[in-house]
């Protein structure tokens, strides 16, 4: 709890600061705050507003205000019936994807095995004349058919 003299000093400091800021401090400051007046005046001189670059202000405004909204924001701005249709399409797509994985699970695995095997048998030969990389596709395909998975 501040004493009454402390509160009085704080009020005086406040008044002196306002006077300095307004350029209206003509009287000698009271003794209680006299030693702090120099500090207040120095702060008043040093702490002045700083302007941003106009280009910065304009480009930031453009970025924020005219920037493209994100997916969520755009979805929120859509009419209700379009939002519902989009949600239904998304659910149907997911359903199809999982059903396909469930009932046709063997096909992707066979394809993956073939993809993993193919690079091992790539034979890259460099033509002597034109310095081109050449893949012997026919040979790779024959080797793929001959080798059991």
């Amino acid at each position, binding site marked *: 709890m501040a004493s009454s003299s402390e509160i009085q000093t*704080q009020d005086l400091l406040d008044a002196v600061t306002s006077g300095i800021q307004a350029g209206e401090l003509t009287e000698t400051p009271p003794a209680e705050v006299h030693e702090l007046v120099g500090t207040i005046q120095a*702060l*008043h001189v040093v702490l002045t*507003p700083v*302007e*941003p670059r106009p280009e910065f202000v304009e480009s930031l*405004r453009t970025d*924020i205000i005219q920037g493209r909204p994100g997916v969520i924001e755009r979805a929120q701005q859509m009419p209700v019936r379009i939002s519902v249709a989009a949600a239904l399409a998304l659910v149907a797509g997911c359903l199809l994807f999982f059903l396909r994985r469930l009932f046709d699970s063997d096909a992707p695995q066979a394809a993956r095995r073939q993809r993993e095997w193919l690079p091992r048998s790539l034979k890259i030969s460099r033509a002597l004349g034109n310095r081109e990389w050449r893949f012997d596709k026919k040979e790779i395909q024959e080797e793929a058919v001959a080798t059991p998975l």
Partner: protein
Amino acid sequence: MKNIFSRRVNHPELEDRELVALAKDDAEAFGELYARYVKKMYSYIFHRTGNTQDAEDLTAKVFIRAYSHIGNYVDRGAPFQAWLYRIAHNLVANWHRDQARRKIIALDDYVAHSLQSEAPERLAEDVEERDQLMEAVRRLPEERQQLLLLKFIEQLSNAEIGEIMGRTEGAIKSLYHRTLLALRDDMQRTPEAGQQRRLDGTEV
């Protein structure tokens, strides 16, 4: 449909509170708020960071964060700028924590900004004095720096500063008094000694 039939709003004539309510759905309303406060935010952040690059980065972050959270803004009677200052204060605090070499913040930008109109013969002397004072201000605890910037740069009243800092008007007056005493004591010490300790008593 609502955009076709809605009447044209003249944003500059509206008060902050009305603009905030509109800004939840209207980018132009937020644009008006931006125009009103971008210079204040930049100035505040510039004095807290000491360089143009970080001041611009953090000012951008303040408004991007404000724009993305304006939908959650609840008007509790405090001015809108208090909300912006709190965002700025938090971002600056995080920035200071991230600075590995906080003590070598360049003051060149500050001097270039603030001394453009000075007479040449006094320039060197003033630069030294101002550098010392700014260094002393930056050694203050964060809340005291914030108080000085809001009081001297923004020239806000104690009540307005209290709303921003979440304190009573009396607490702000008391903090201001203690801050001035600490600053005066620090300036009276030798510069070397002053740089060895923070004004809140913690060793650097």
